[in-house]
């Protein structure tokens, strides 16, 4: 078989998690989701997976090899096959599934939208960014746009006929969005003249759609400093006429595109706004609030990129491990496929178990998003929203950190071939690397967890969640001997996580630097514990299905993760509780 393997959508694994682990049937029972029962959803995911594998995945290599190209006339051309695939994607309507029916969407839960994203990101991460950013712009409009803007822009953005972008970053304003300087001057007719330079704008220009709707953060004259003075605007590439047709070109120019380590198919643009016409979304100076709404959603999607690319790389490395023969495994009488070597097995199992944990975690977060929006009871909505707030930085960071680690393992399995570009696995390592950086670097996520999320309701919110995780203990105790080691390990590690949490509660207020110093290892402790907890639940559920094969697979994955990966958690405790002393003991000149 050829070295390059095709993407196989893991719809069976996903369906299992939906039904047995993240409580999808409860979501389908929420008002408004009558049409989204599990059977329907699985049917849709099968077709969607087929589409991603057959239409989108074949564009992945060309996308990497050719890359998006900037033309001297300022336009941007996407790699071979992207345009056709995008058109088919629009025709198939996959982007519209989780969006409101009012604007032509399918009215499905966010959970389902995230799975569609996962499969698209596995098929071609660079390509998937166009719909992903469009979704961000749609959400801003949906929640804060006035009716006129909604009617004018949403229907075509929901279908994907019009794409969207997110313009936050400027040369001096990256992690610190508050430092941005792009100006928005009111013209007196309700519109604003937008001027300034934005950098790193994903799909800032391209040839996939006739129209691009930029969501731009800018400052109005006299706005307060920092994040409190930021407003949010829609700036279309082409002005839209009264009848909905496209009018004049708005002066937003693509100055250049970046040469990047990965996601070559995704044009990363420097955009120059030269008194371009913009339309305010919501109120002046309330731009950050809009960003916060979108942030949870976008961060969960980016966390899922780590999972998605790891899945693709895993599939490829598994294929290779079965075919590559080299040396003899213990007891073998002829050359062995490398999958017979214990160390190769370790790399495969680490990938498989971690991917299973990540997927459960992403879907759990998404399901709480759905509860937070659709539970009839307000308290239930609020609680779900808190959990989303807690899980989001964990999903984003842990998902993308593992994305880097797991793709690297997949490459390692290929030996020297892995380092050769032709093999194709190196692309995954390069592609996924950005996910830990954009949409709030992983460091910023850790700071968010420690600085914002732990303090919710004076720490009660986090404690309640920890208590929920502890509930699995009783079920594991009842499940018998096979679950004993997993149960013991989970208990030990949840104790460590609680200890770390207590330390931050006790020291964070008095010495914020000390708490921030350990924030990244602390976030990882969370990732490890939530992952192991969800896999334990999956193992219990697997047993309950009565299907021996499912029961065995789930048990082994959960046990492997609990026994061999989860113990890292307590190993991180010292780093969390060490404080900042040694981090700052050497001054910059000594570093």
């Amino acid at each position, binding site marked *: 078989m050829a070295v390059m393997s095709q993407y196989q959508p893991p719809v069976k694994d996903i369906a299992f998690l939906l039904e047995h682990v993240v409580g999808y049937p409860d979501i389908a029972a929420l008002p408004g989701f009558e049409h989204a029962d599990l059977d329907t959803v699985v049917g849709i995911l099968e*077709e969607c997976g087929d589409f991603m594998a057959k239409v989108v995945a074949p564009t992945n290599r060309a996308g990497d090899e050719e890359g998006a190209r900037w033309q001297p006339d300022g336009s941007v051309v996407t790699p071979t096959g992207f345009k056709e695939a995008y058109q088919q994607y629009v025709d198939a*309507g996959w982007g519209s599934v989780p969006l409101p029916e009012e604007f032509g969407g399918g009215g499905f839960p966010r959970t389902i939208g995230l799975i569609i994203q996962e499969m698209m990101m596995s098929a071609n991460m660079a390509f998937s960014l166009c719909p992903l950013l469009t979704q961000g712009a749609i959400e801003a409009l949906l929640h804060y746009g006035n009716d006129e803007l909604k009617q004018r822009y949403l229907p075509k953005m929901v279908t994907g006929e019009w794409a969207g972008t997110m313009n936050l970053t400027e040369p001096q304003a990256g992690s610190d969005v508050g430092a941005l300087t792009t100006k928005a001057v009111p013209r007196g007719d309700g519109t604003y003249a937008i001027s300034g330079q934005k950098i790193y704008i994903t799909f800032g220009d391209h040839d996939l759609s006739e129209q691009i709707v930029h969501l731009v953060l800018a400052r109005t004259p006299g706005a307060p400093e920092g994040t409190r003075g930021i407003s949010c605007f829609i700036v279309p590439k082409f002005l839209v006429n009264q009848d909905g047709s496209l009018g004049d070109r708005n002066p937003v120019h693509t100055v250049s595109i970046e040469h990047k380590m990965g996601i070559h198919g995704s044009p990363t643009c420097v955009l120059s706004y030269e008194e371009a016409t913009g339309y305010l979304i919501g109120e002046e100076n309330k731009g950050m609030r809009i960003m916060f709404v979108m942030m949870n959603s976008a961060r969960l999607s980016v966390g899922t990129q780590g999972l998605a690319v790891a899945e693709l790389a895993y599939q490829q490395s598994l294929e290779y491990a079965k075919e590559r023969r080299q040396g003899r495994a213990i007891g073998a009488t002829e050359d062995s496929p490398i999958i017979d070597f214990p160390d190769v097995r370790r790399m495969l199992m680490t990938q498989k178990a971690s991917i299973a944990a990540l997927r459960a975690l992403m879907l759990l977060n998404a399901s709480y998003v759905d509860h937070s929006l659709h539970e009839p009871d307000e308290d239930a909505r609020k609680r779900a929203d808190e959990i989303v707030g807690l899980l989001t930085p964990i999903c984003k960071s842990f998902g993308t950190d593992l994305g880097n680690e797991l793709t690297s393992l997949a490459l390692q399995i290929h030996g020297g071939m892995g380092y050769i570009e032709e093999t194709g696995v190196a692309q995954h390592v390069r592609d996924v690397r950005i996910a830990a950086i954009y949409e709030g670097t992983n460091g910023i996520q850790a700071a968010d967890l420690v600085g914002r999320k732990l303090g919710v309701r004076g720490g009660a919110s986090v404690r309640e969640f920890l208590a929920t995780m502890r509930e699995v203990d009783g079920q594991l105790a009842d499940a018998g001997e096979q679950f004993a080691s997993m149960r013991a390990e989970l208990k030990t590690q949840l104790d460590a996580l609680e200890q770390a949490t207590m330390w931050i509660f006790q020291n964070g207020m008095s010495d914020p630097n000390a708490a921030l110093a350990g924030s990244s290892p602390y976030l990882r402790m969370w990732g490890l514990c939530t992952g192991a907890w969800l896999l334990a639940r999956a193992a219990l559920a697997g047993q309950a299905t009565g299907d021996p094969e499912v029961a065995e697979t789930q048990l082994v994955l959960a046990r492997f993760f609990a026994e061999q990966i989860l113990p890292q958690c307590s190993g991180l405790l010292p780093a969390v509780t060490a404080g900042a002393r040694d981090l700052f003991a050497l001054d910059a000149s000594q570093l």
Partner: protein
Amino acid sequence: MRIVVLVKQVPDTSDVRKLDLNTGLLDRDAGEPIVDEINERGLEAALRYKDDNKGTEVVVLSMGPENAIKSIRKALSMGADSGVHIVDDSLAGADALVTSLAISKALERTGYDLVVAGNESTDGNGGIVPAMISERLGIPLLGFLVNMEITEAQVSGERQGDDGTANVHAGLPAIVTVTERFDYARFPNFKGIMTAKRKPVDTVTLAELGVDAAEVSSLDRTEVISAVERPARTAGTKIDDDGTAAATLVEYLATNRLV
């Protein structure tokens, strides 16, 4: 206009297919069941006509086990309006005579102006059922079309032949079979999948179709007497071209008296 598209669920040809050596029948578990690709092309042709001609009704008809409903749903999600599913335990292993009888009865019951079938299925490779249906229904067959034009009153197209093609036509009602020169089918879209759930599927048994056991047993039967599996081929020599490979190959051919 009502176009009935015949759809057969077959094991994916990309998987290795197995013959049950005891019964001589296809082991339907060996290979993911899918809509035969040629039928998807036929459906696409019907749907294109429907796209351009409002008021066209496209019905998919499948004879097959319970799970063939999956293939019918898939066709509905691609845009067909309704389905007919002939399911009957006694049809397991049915040969072409019986199959064509059941399908013809179902077609009479459903009504049709045009029937679109594949030139041959990938699991039987017979390519005889559509002609049998044309005979049973007394309607013209345009088989092995490489293209097709449908109008209110007739269907026409180019028919593949041994040494070229022929331009052929027939008045409706008629049955046609399409070849691989027809386009690949569209992917089901999300809206289509959602609406497919509400589209009617008429599930019928042989008795409901009025096929009586006596008629079936009066037909000659085909039976498998024996089946043997051929040993798999193994790979021989493989060399990298270093500039002399052509010469080495010619030597090899000469030694084996192939040049």
